[in-house]
């Protein structure tokens, strides 16, 4: 089970003079859930976008399932078929029903027959608890439901790894739970996941490893308990404490029903 599915070596990304991240190295084993945390603007999203080649890194290499995907002339579309991506703002295809959103990659990218694609898509919708919403358009779904459809859409491609880019940040507090639940189930099913999030509860319970990224480099990484209770750096403790407090406050507000 402990096969490395994703290996990142000395990855660097700059925009002009601005270094987004510098010589980042990371290994993700099959079935692992890795949570990436860090202040905004530290290159977490850019890192994810480099992994599915939506953005090109300037230096360094990435191997996916043993193949170097940063090699020149490597087929990008082929790589992306095997890397599921879930965005902060869902990005469902607005003109398609939930079912068609999940189906379209199967029919138009994988070339599956319509019937087979439909069966598979319904399974994936069922997996995220939305089989009964198959015929709804994104405009008819809540944010949480849209994000779950987006997860189903990515899962339908049978990816080697799922990338989550702050999947709950754009959601109302009461809708976060349903999305996290789906992600927790995926983690239990040993889906390989790389998750950028501020949901510390999720990180603590589900992550095999937490990576703390700041100012373009990895400050510290390790098991959740180590980072939360025995961090090597004061900065890690400070950040985790601050974020957890924020998260805790949101929880309290919810329970008290103080927020409309």
């Amino acid at each position: 089970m402990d096969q490395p599915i994703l290996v990142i070596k000395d990855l660097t990304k700059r925009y002009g003079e601005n270094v987004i991240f510098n010589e980042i190295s990371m290994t993700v084993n099959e079935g692992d859930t890795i949570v990436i945390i860090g202040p905004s603007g530290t290159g977490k999203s850019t890192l994810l976008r480099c992994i599915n080649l939506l953005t090109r890194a300037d230096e360094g290499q990435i191997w996916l399932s043993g193949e170097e995907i940063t090699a020149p002339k490597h087929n990008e579309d082929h790589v992306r078929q095997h890397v599921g991506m879930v965005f902060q703002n869902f990005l469902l295809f607005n003109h398609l029903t939930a079912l068609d959103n999940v189906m379209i990659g199967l029919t138009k990218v994988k070339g599956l027959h319509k019937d087979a694609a439909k069966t598979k898509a319904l399974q994936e919708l069922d997996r995220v608890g939305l089989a009964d919403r198959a015929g709804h358009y994104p405009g008819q779904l809540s944010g949480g439901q849209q994000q779950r459809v987006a997860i189903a859409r990515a899962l339908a491609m049978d990816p080697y790894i799922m990338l989550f880019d702050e999947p709950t940040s754009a959601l109302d507090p009461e809708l976060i739970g349903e999305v996290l639940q789906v992600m927790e189930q995926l983690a239990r099913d040993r889906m390989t996941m790389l998750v950028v999030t501020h949901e510390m509860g999720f990180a603590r319970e589900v992550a095999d490893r937490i990576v703390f990224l700041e100012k373009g480099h990895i400050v510290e990484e390790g098991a959740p308990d180590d980072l939360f209770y025995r961090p090597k750096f004061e900065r890690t403790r400070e950040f985790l404490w601050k974020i957890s407090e924020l998260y805790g406050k949101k929880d309290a507000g919810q329970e008290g029903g103080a927020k409309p």
Partner: protein
Amino acid sequence: MFTFFSYIAAGTAVTIAVTLVALPMGLVFGLVFALLYIYGGPLLSALMKVYSTMMRGVPPVVLLFILYFIMSGAINLSPFWAGSLSLGIISSAYQMEIFRGSIQSVGSGQMVAARAIGMSRIRAIRYIILPQALRYAIPPWSNEASTVLKDSSLVYALGVAEILRRAQLLSASTQQPFLAYGSAAFIYFVLVFFTNRMLDLLEQKTRLPTHL
């Protein structure tokens, strides 16, 4: 009286024919030009911009004469075809702007999401961008459809016997200009009205449902 009106109305078929050549032609070229403008790289994009600016910067009737003399000089075309094709070329510039706007109204995230599931750019345009962009395009396109329908009257200057040309002839021969041009106006109005109604229906039919 009946023959008077039916003489003008007989031009209706010509007017509709001119429109049915010019409008679809402008649609095909306008859409292709818009795609080249947005996705075609800097050179093609610049070229399309020049084309659109020039075409839209000159009155249609002036362009019509220029294109007519180019076309009838190069290839032996009848006034009907030369006029209709010229109107199609002029309309392509306006339709290019309509489609450019509507394609750009589709959020950039839609393309990102399509590429993220491994779709090629061409397929993403075909299956994700265009189906949404074309919906946005219907209201402004409806406007362009009525413009082309009305501008088809310009081919009368080339001697094509469409509605306006016939109204003018009748006005001169019967000395009843109000009746002649009034009849022409009425026919144009009816044509434009029903064209817009049909496009309204299309817009309603393709509208995406929102909320529960």
